[in-house]
């Protein structure tokens, strides 16, 4: 379709096109299926939208959640799952559910709830991309939303304590990573040689965990020991995101040096 598709999402850093998992899922799927997506990165002007990122804007409508965006792209004939069999399609749904149930709480915790990570990495990064005075409010709200989600889905009523569930969510996340690693094995993508929706989801959730430098990253440490998943993320970054990556890493290298006062040696992936 010739109509322009515009995606507004959070920007990139640490060698990634986007630091936000859901935005990354949509961007990866668009690359895999060949959809001509114009990416509009949210910056700290008031014109950028902050609502329910990522948001796909077409001429007629505005679509907000990754699942719905992917459905829309498939209806527009940008289908990355064309060659999958019925059983593989069913497997895709199942593994996506597994990632959302087991891996997502721990990823949310690492990014938004763990105080060291949140105050030194996540909050400054997001605050620098949101105009004042929203930058004081929105990151806090996102963090509370993440904590809420973890507690309501994993905590036990009626008191809902984080500490009770922390160990469990990390254990579940590590098990999930092990399962994904077993499933991937030595092949390049999850279903044969061409990437599909499942690859987009796995990449979207694993890449930020893999690349962003956290002070307290026990899940990161576990992921780095699973070499085939790291190779998977690196392959996709090299093959599909290389051209835009140069721009991202240059732009963000300076930003990080200013923000954190350190040099990140993991930046160069090109």
């Amino acid at each position: 379709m010739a109509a322009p598709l515009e995606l507004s999402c959070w920007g990139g850093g640490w060698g990634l096109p986007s630091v936000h998992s859901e935005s990354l899922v949509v961007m990866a799927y668009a690359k895999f299926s060949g959809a001509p997506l114009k990416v509009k990165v949210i910056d700290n002007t008031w014109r950028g939208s902050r609502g329910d990122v990522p948001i796909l804007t077409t001429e007629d409508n505005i679509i907000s959640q990754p699942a719905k965006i992917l459905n829309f792209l498939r209806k527009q004939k940008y289908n990355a799952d064309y060659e999958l069999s019925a059983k593989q399609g069913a497997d895709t749904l199942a593994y996506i559910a597994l990632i959302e149930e087991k891996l997502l709480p721990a990823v949310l915790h690492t990014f938004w709830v763990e105080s060291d990570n949140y105050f030194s990495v996540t909050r400054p990064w997001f605050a620098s991309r949101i105009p004042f005075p929203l930058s004081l409010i929105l990151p806090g709200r996102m963090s509370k939303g993440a904590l809420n989600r973890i507690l309501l889905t994993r905590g036990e009523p009626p008191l809902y304590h984080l500490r009770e569930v922390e160990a469990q969510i990390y254990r579940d996340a590590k098990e999930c990573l092990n399962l994904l690693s077993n499933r991937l094995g030595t092949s390049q993508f999850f279903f044969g040689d061409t990437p599909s929706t499942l690859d987009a989801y796995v990449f979207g959730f694993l890449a930020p965990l893999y690349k962003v430098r956290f002070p307290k990253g026990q899940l990161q440490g576990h992921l780095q020991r699973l070499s085939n998943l790291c190779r998977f993320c690196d392959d996709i970054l090299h093959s599909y995101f290389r051209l835009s990556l140069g721009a991202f890493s240059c732009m963000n290298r300076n930003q990080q040096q200013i923000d954190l006062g350190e040099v990140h040696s993991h930046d160069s992936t090109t």
Partner: protein
Amino acid sequence: MASGREPGTPPPSRWAATRRLGLGNPRARGGARRWRQRKRSPSTVSCAGSSWPGLAVTLGSSRLHRRPGGLCESEPQPAPRLVAAGDAGVSEEDAEGREERKPRARGRPAAMSLAAEAFVSQIAATEPWPENATLYQQLKGEQILLSDNAASLAVQAFLQMCNLPIKVVCRANAEYMSPSGKVPFIHVGNQVVSELGPIVQFVKAKGHSLSDGLDEVQKAEMKAYMELVNNMLLTAELYLQWCDEATVGEITHARYGSPYPWPLNHILAYQKQWEVRRKMKAIGWGNKTLDQVLEDVDQCCQALSQRLGTQPYFFNKQPTELDALVFGHLYTILTTQLTNDELSEKVKNYSNLLAFCRRIEQHYFEDRGKVSSSVKSS
């Protein structure tokens, strides 16, 4: 009660642990802000870390027997405790008395889980499966709801598949008796375990397992499909019961509070509805319409049907816990009468799923002289 004592057994009482560390009552403060407040108390971290082994030995006897829902869910480990106490990576949250659930996940996953599983098997395998094991659920005729019935049926099917005898007991307060707040739960020997996941692990520790014959990839698939059922089917059932106005008004409120006198029945029903709606909003289902939910159910059933294909069970010849879970949910959906039949129509579209349910019902329930539970709302 000191029979389960081993060096480094997790201290049983969270209250005692936190009081001893001088941190006050954590439950008194709001849950959401505590993780920020803890950032300001680094001094307690160092002393807590070093006193762990001493703490573990001096604090009372184990609460393992009273709360093994926790035992099975989090697999507390004694050996890792001693390692973790000296571990430099102990974080603030770690050190504040949540020892029984914590330490394992700090950089040594493989060793920790081996020790954990050895401990769990030791405790659980000391006794064989008793004859008087009971499963508790809510009252079948008047009180139990769609989602709870599905969960209970799944556990019953699983235990039947493992050939373990179980007696089903209906109690109005089953939800409050359960260690995790969810039904069903089983009472085996002197341990209480709730929910299918922990029950499967507990039964495995006793030496019965349905999924031993699967290889790693198949186990991953099985877990993924179980999450799919939990994510889509269970959430859709909860949505239908508690967020759809017609069903809530006609069926759910009346059933949920039926054992209690006025006004308690209304209060409990509203409280539960508020909780479930909060959860739906947090996971993004708050804005979904009923049609979207039914579409999701359809997608899920399609995925299950494609995975099942023409095989008798999901992993060829032998049933696994996935079969039990799918049977529990699908059978309950098919046999429960709601305000409209849309949900069961979605399932009836797939004939191999219907045949699957019929097969399991015949083989594991009718053949053994038990009548499978079905709920009819009045």
